């Protein structure tokens, strides 16, 4: 006797974000539908006969059986074109500033806004003329999107042929036809605005080997556990270990052309902080505001969980779009655990059989698919582009043996292990140097060796010192440091200098927040020179206290904040002073 008994495409069952709809014959998986009078956005996730199960991206309170459903016939697709940079979107690409203008402080259900401004005119410089042969991925023209980003309007994948007509240089909107290309399937219009389904990877000509580091300006990362351009990293840590701060630091200072920051199920105030800071901060390489190369995706923890599931695909699709212009893109996903939890929540509502800890059995393959959308490629247009992905993981209870951490480790080659003990001592970034690893040393080595010959050996030596330090600390924990001989106490001393003078890095100190590779190499060289000199002195019978009392030691400890990033002459002077003082101590010891 229900109103749903009539014909048409209507809701028959509502259970939270999972809605069953009948009259959906012929629908495709992941087709987008609009549900109810409010037009809530949803996606078809399962089909059974004439009915389909729809995952709705918004709150479904007071949605009733019998409510109308409108089909769109297309999968969830993004708007790609100039205007993405500097914007902030929710998980399904609704522009949050535009939503604020429409409905104020609170996000109302069913609110719609175009992801890109359709009225804005962009300066377009064509690179094609009529009669020319073009192929997919080739640039049809250029648009200066921001002072940092020259946006290439590309011939979309699948379109090749002769240009029938092309517009002259001028200002156009994203919907204006810029060129018409004759293809086998008929004439195709080229516009700035292109649409692409979020769940489908954009094609590239071929994968390349990762070459060169993604310079982040963070010493422990660049020097010890580097990530290559096109690499994938996993950064797990319990709460309070500084995952988000580390991600923010990377997003601020990485030398990528485009930064995409996905706030996936995290705190609202953290996104506000990014919004407040990025326009103010200057890119150390270009001096321009960081926002001019950044796109933010914010689906905070209290926003609908189904949209959270899509948000990382939204981010990675935008990344691929800019990669295809031949740019290096870095994607930061904070946190992939919240994404996995969204998967779990949706799977439970769909009554799927759970695997480990309630996560669906498809979790590993979904993670693999996501991380495989990263990498270095030759684009369809023949250019070199890359996507580096850094995924934060929030393991429950800080226990790294849980499924999301474990599976993420399988598909990433860098592991930055955050450590509660370091965080408790307020040593930031709290990346544990004994448990972290990077598999990109071979790929980044040439760039470092060019900058600082002997880098790899120096790095290995420093790692060995830190390992010895840990060993000595363990013994000292049992018998007290004073019971150790000077030759072992030396490791405690140098380890302390490494921790405070190199591994710790302030996110707020002007000189320290971004440490250029040359300064990193100089600082590491300085500390290792202290180590070698100290080792020789101790061997020669000089007491360790004479080494630790060298007047330049406090200076070395404060060098990370005391010297500007480009003050290499100053650091060289300090190194000379150290050598002098070590020499004097040796002479004194000998006499």
């Amino acid at each position: 006797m229900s109103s749903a008994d009539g014909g048409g495409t209507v809701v028959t069952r509502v259970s939270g974000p999972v809605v069953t709809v009948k009259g959906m014959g012929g629908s495709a998986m992941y087709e987008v539908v609009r549900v109810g009078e409010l037009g809530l956005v949803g996606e078809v996730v399962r089909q059974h006969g004439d009915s389909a199960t729809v995952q709705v991206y918004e709150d479904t309170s007071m949605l009733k059986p019998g409510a109308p459903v409108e089909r769109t016939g297309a999968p969830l697709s993004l708007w790609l074109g100039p205007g993405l940079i500097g914007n902030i979107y929710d998980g399904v690409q609704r522009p949050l500033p535009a939503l604020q203008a429409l409905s104020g402080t609170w996000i109302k259900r069913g609110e719609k806004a175009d992801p890109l401004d359709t009225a804005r005119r962009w300066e377009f410089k064509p690179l094609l003329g009529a009669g020319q042969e073009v192929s997919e991925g080739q640039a049809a023209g250029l648009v200066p999107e921001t002072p940092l980003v020259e946006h290439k309007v590309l011939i979309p994948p699948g379109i090749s042929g002769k240009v029938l007509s092309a517009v002259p240089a001028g200002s156009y909107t994203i919907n204006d036809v810029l060129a018409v290309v004759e293809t086998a399937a008929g004439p195709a219009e080229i516009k700035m605005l292109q649409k692409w389904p979020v769940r489908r990877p954009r094609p590239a000509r071929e994968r390349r080997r990762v070459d060169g580091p993604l310079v982040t300006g963070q010493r422990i990362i660049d020097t010890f556990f580097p990530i290559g351009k096109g690499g994938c990293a996993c950064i797990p840590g319990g709460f309070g270990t500084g995952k988000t701060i580390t991600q923010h630091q990377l997003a601020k200072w990485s030398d990528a052309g485009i930064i995409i920051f996905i706030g996936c199920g995290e705190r609202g105030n953290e996104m506000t902080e990014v919004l407040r800071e990025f326009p103010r901060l200057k890119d150390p390489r270009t001096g321009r505001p960081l926002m001019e190369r950044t796109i933010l995706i914010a689906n905070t923890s209290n926003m609908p969980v189904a949209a959270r599931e899509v948000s990382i695909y939204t981010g990675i699709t935008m990344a691929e779009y800019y990669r295809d212009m031949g740019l290096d893109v870095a994607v930061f996903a904070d946190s992939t655990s919240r994404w996995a939890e969204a998967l779990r929540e949706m799977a439970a509502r769909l009554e799927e059989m759970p695997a480990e800890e309630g996560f669906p059995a498809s979790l590993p393959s979904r993670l693999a698919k996501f991380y495989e959308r990263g990498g270095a490629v030759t684009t369809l247009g023949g250019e070199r582009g890359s996507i580096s992905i850094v995924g934060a993981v929030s393991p429950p209870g800080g226990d790294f043996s849980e499924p999301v951490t474990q599976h993420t480790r399988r598909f990433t080659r860098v592991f930055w292990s955050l450590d509660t003990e370091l965080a408790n001592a307020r040593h930031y970034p709290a990346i544990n140097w004994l448990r972290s690893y990077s598999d990109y040393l071979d790929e980044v080595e040439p760039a470092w060796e060019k900058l600082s010959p002997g880098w790899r050996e120096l790095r290995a030596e420093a790692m060995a010192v830190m390992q010895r330090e840990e060993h000595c600390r363990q013994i000292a924990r049992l018998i007290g440091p004073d019971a150790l001989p000077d030759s072992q106490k030396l490791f405690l001393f140098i380890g302390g200098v490494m921790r405070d003078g190199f591994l710790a890095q302030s996110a707020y100190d002007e000189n320290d927040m971004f440490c250029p590779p040359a300064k990193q190499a100089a600082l590491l060289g300085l500390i290792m020179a202290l180590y070698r000199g100290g080792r020789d002195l101790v061997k020669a019978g000089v007491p360790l206290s004479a080494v630790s009392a060298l007047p330049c030691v406090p200076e070395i400890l404060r060098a990370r904040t005391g010297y500007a990033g480009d003050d290499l002459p100053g650091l060289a002077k300090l190194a000379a002073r150290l050598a002098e003082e070590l020499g004097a101590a040796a002479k004194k010891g000998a006499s």
Partner: protein
Amino acid sequence: MSAISGYPPDRGLEYVGASRIEGLLVVVERVRDVGFDELVEIAGPGGRPRLGRVLEVSDKCALVQVLEGTDGLSGRTVSARFLGESLRLPVSRSMLGRVFDGLGRPADGGPPPLSGDRRDVNGSPINPVARRYPREFIQTGISAIDGMNALVRGQKLPIFSGNGLPHDRVCAQLIRQARLPGEKEGFSIVFAAMGVKRDVADYFMRDFAASGALSRVAMFLSLADAPGVERLLTPRSALTLAEHLAFDCGQHVLVVLTDMTNYCESLREVGSARGEIPGRKGYPGYLYSDLASLYERAGRVDGSPGSITQTAILTMPSDDISHPVPDLTGYITEGQIVLDRELSQRGIYPPISGLPSLSRLMKDGVGKGYTREDHPALTSQLFACYAYVKRVRALADIIGEEELGAGDKLYLKFGEAFENRFISQGEREDRPIELTLDLGWEILSMLPREELRRVGEKMLDEHYRSGIIIKNQESGI
């Protein structure tokens, strides 16, 4: 007006009979025009009607969760009246000074609040773009908080505690003393009690009365003997009022939620009654999202002078910080104040644990222009030194205190002074921030100057005072 929901008794269609009653769930067949999450009045013959809400609805039937228990209901005679909207709370400024139950019905014998403004208790997410970043330092007068884990207006900072620890006293002190430095007026307080004992609620009520705060407190009580499901709505009712006071009336609101562990247990109870697939420790897989839908209802927004600052109290089962409730809370809130059993047993009040406590927003609310320029460096140095104290203590346990080096012995003394003089204070002692900072320097000055690597030379020149202090310490001042 029906006493139970405030709705007129003829509202909505009434259905008689249920095909299934199980635990808190009632299945009503052949319903029409019923929405998901819709409010329902369920009644037995002649019985008092009880509130419920729709958990799932199809074109054939509706699954209703009864908020107040199903005892005495009979499948044949039970009646269900669907009220046409989800749970709403009338909100008005006049609700300050009143006591309500978990659903927002008066529990102090007074009349229902007069208000034409009825809000969905689930709220809507704040657009992240509309948020303003919180950065006004709140002086709580508690050194362990102000000095080490400062709270700012619009922050959510929970207290992680254990059974038998004085979290209620710490929280009451915080409520009494919290204000911006130099301001007289404190916060408006919205207090939500979930599953706590009557004594606890009474304790807070007495404390509010004694400090003259009662007129700016609204209490939502769902005590230990109230039905479990009501607890799930209690914090939502409280936060709905808080949002009205903060963002419509421009007040600064402090929301106290106690005890979130009870809330989560109710959520687990309801989840298992529905036959959901359990996650860690039997808690539902959506615990994180559910908690976030509460904790994220805090902060400041554009276009309103008001703010919501949140402090949730939760007791960690067997003091385990990795238990799902504190764990997921810590991932959502902006830090945590952790109470420590060992400190408490040594008689230190407030027993705020030095190292695991954290305030994420502190960095932007202290220092030059907010508290004092030396504040961030001082905090960082105190943390570093206290972390070292913990290592020295572990060592002393093994090799004995006598075997320690002179430097390490000094650290032990520093640790004692830090706990006994800096952390420890009276329950009625309201320390201005300057006093807290000076005390911090005084204690730091027990250590040799060259150990203080996190402080710049200039700041050390200004604040480091070797010699004087240790004398004071010895003379017992």
